[in-house]
């Protein structure tokens, strides 16, 4: 029995490593972002990517889709985008006998990996259509529910700079994303590598190293990792420390935070930590795993108050202080 599980874990690690290696052939740097995106995919979550234009958000998603042999679709969100443009619509189709019937035309959401580019440019109505599909893993149209093919993984991007003519995601909808990742501007060495790779006659290509079924197996494997109660308590303490009204709240939380993390945030911590444990060849989750996913899992769930906005306080700063402050369980 143990041998089977051992093999599953070994497979998990080797596949993860293959994907990472393939992606690194195209994507320069941002290894932690790649790891976190993979973590999110294997934890059955969705990712919100934030970064200035041109840092490779779309390229990253395309590369991942190519490496994993998944059906990929891209939706460029614009203010005139309608929900039907995403989920699909019923059209009238006439057959050879002249009989006419409604037929559901699948939208771009019917893919394994969906890139929702600049999600904050669409109207809230359209955003809701996507976010509902993310939550339910199904689409309802014309009275019929259409299940989405698994794995279903949405990577939404948004530009933090151009806020004019945008519809910022409401807090409740932000909560649907397991992780929020930030792509930073690359350094000089990384820029050199990017130029070397992208300005020549032949650009590197990605091999498909992961099948759809293998991803589902990896997801199952990740869910099987046990989490000890003390470690789980540690995750809960971190989440509670983000609540200003909680007795366990950190002093910065009381000063700058309006609302703390939801229970989904704790789920994100545990699920992300499980994948991290497997990546590190462990069958148990440690507090270090919790800490490693705390920032991407909680930064979009900590809602700052006006004072924090005025003082330009970063949620990451508060979370880092909380992580330093909350002690690891002794027993």
């Amino acid at each position: 029995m143990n041998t089977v599980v051992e093999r599953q874990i070994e497979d998990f690690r080797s596949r993860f490593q293959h994907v990472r290696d393939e992606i690194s052939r195209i994507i320069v740097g941002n290894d932690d972002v790649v790891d976190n995106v993979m973590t999110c995919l294997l934890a059955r979550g969705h990712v919100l990517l934030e970064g200035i234009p041109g840092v490779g958000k779309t390229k990253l998603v395309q590369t991942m889709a190519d490496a994993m042999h998944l059906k990929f679709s891209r939706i460029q969100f614009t203010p005139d985008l309608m929900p039907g443009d995403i989920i699909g619509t019923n059209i009238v189709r006439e057959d050879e006998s002249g009989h006419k019937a409604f037929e559901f035309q699948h939208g771009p959401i019917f893919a394994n990996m969906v890139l929702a580019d600049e999600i904050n440019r669409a109207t809230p109505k359209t955003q809701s259509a996507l976010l509902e599909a993310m939550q339910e893993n199904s689409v309802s149209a014309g009275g019929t529910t259409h299940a989405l093919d698994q794995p279903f993984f949405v990577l939404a991007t948004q530009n933090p700079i151009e806020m004019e003519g945008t519809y910022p995601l409401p807090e409740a909808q932000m909560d649907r994303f397991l992780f929020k990742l930030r792509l930073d501007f690359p350094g000089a060495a990384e820029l050199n590598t990017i130029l070397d790779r992208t300005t020549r006659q032949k650009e590197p290509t990605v091999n498909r190293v992961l099948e759809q079924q293998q991803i589902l197996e990896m997801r199952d494997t990740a869910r099987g990792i046990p989490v000890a109660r003390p470690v789980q308590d540690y995750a809960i303490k971190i989440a509670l420390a983000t609540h200003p009204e909680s007795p366990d709240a950190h002093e910065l939380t009381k000063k700058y935070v309006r609302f703390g993390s939801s229970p989904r945030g704790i789920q994100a911590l545990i699920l992300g930590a499980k994948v991290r444990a497997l990546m590190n060849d462990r069958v148990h989750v440690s507090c270090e795993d919790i800490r490693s996913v705390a920032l991407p899992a909680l930064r979009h769930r900590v809602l700052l108050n006006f004072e924090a906005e005025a003082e330009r306080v970063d949620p990451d700063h508060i979370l880092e202080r909380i992580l330093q402050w909350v002690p690891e369980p002794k027993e």
Partner: protein
Amino acid sequence: MNNQAIIQDLLRRVATRLRINRASREVGFGACIALFALLAFRLVQPVFSAATIGIAAAAASLALSGLVVLVLWRATRPATPMQAAGAADAKADLKDELKSAAWIISEGDASTFAQLQLSRAARRAEQLAPRTLVPLAVPRSAGLALLLALVFLVTDRSVSMASRDWASVLPAGIEGQAEAESLRALLDDAPPDPLIERLDQALAVLERRDVTSEAAQRAAIEAREAVDATDMRAIEAREGLNRLAEAMKGDPRYEAVARALEQGRTEEAAAMLEDIRQELGLAPRPDEGTTPGDAVAEGVRSEQEFSKAVEESARELGNLSASVNEETLNSVLKNIEDAQKMIDAQNRVREVNRRMNDFLAASSQRSPLTASRFGNQANPSNPTASPQTGSTTMQGGTMFRQGAVARGDDDQASNEGNKAGAASGHSAAAPLEGAATERLEAKLQRENIRLREQVEQDDAQGEKSWFYSPTEAGQAQTAIAGVRGRDTYAGADVMSPELIPMRQRGLVKEYFTNLHESEKR
């Protein structure tokens, strides 16, 4: 041994070591608190009375009992397997592997992943040694407790020796009870004397073995006071004898008696007076037949009575130019005998005091914490001439006595070292150096009076004083201060320069200019 057993065995051993470490830490901590409390208690013990100390000791015992219970409870608490796992994880950087294993065991998780985790943790546990995970260490609190114990021992010894000054040394000293008894024996054959009785009672308290330090200190003070009173009385007696000698000098019949009295040969003087009495054929005194030595049973008169009697005798002796009054001679004889008794009592008491001082000096010098060794030498009972007059080398330093030495006209070489520096001596004080400076306050007061007189005079003449002419605005602002300043200089508003007259300023300046004139010279 299966995986669970391996893990549990390791955790049990780690828990045992954790418990030992915790127990030693707790015991060390408890010992620190207890020793600190004992130390504080020992330090304040001599300050308070026995009753207060008793109550405090009972309260402290209660608190210490509570502390012992608390420490025992904390020390005997077992370390849980989860605590052991946490300690091992932290020490060996196992990233919560043993903690997860302990939790899986406690929960009885039978999933495949849980079993795999257990097997991995068991493999890891086999490689770990409990002594490296939790080394047994002496806690820092134990070191602190040891230090406190040493401090307590030193303090206890020092406080004991200090509290034995005077009183408690006697029973526990070199000769102990026998010494105290011999001191009292010196007073046994003394004539009835309230001062001797007072000293005897004090010695009786001091010789008791169960005497408390407070009672011993009180008795020691009582003894000192009795000794001082005896000394004072003896001084009075000697002065009385001198007065009698002065009074007798005028009559050639008493010349020899006066000389004997001056030279301190009291018994001889009394015998000579007795001879004179017999030569004159006077009737024997009512207490005839009793020599000064035999007059033990008779009490010693008080200083006041003696002084009054001597005064009367001296006056009457001055009138004895023609005839000898029998009553006067009897009175003089009685006074001489009384003076002799007082001097005898002083000698007796001095002997007791000397022995006690010797005794205390021995114990005081043993303790570096007591200052009584200086006191013993500063007021020696049997002074000897210092080889270097003016400074005496003592234990712990040199006491310079030049400040107290004052040369007198009748200073003699034989007194050198004995009387030099004695505050009660009859040497005149050395004259002050430098020019005499009048007190500034007096000058200002006098100037103020002069000023007031002049203002009144000026007012009468309708003129303003030449040295101070305030403006209208100044008058309006400083009226109250000015009025106050007219009466007393101290009440004036000295912060306003307009209100200080020129002459007063000049006085102040002159005072401080001349203050150190003598030093400049």
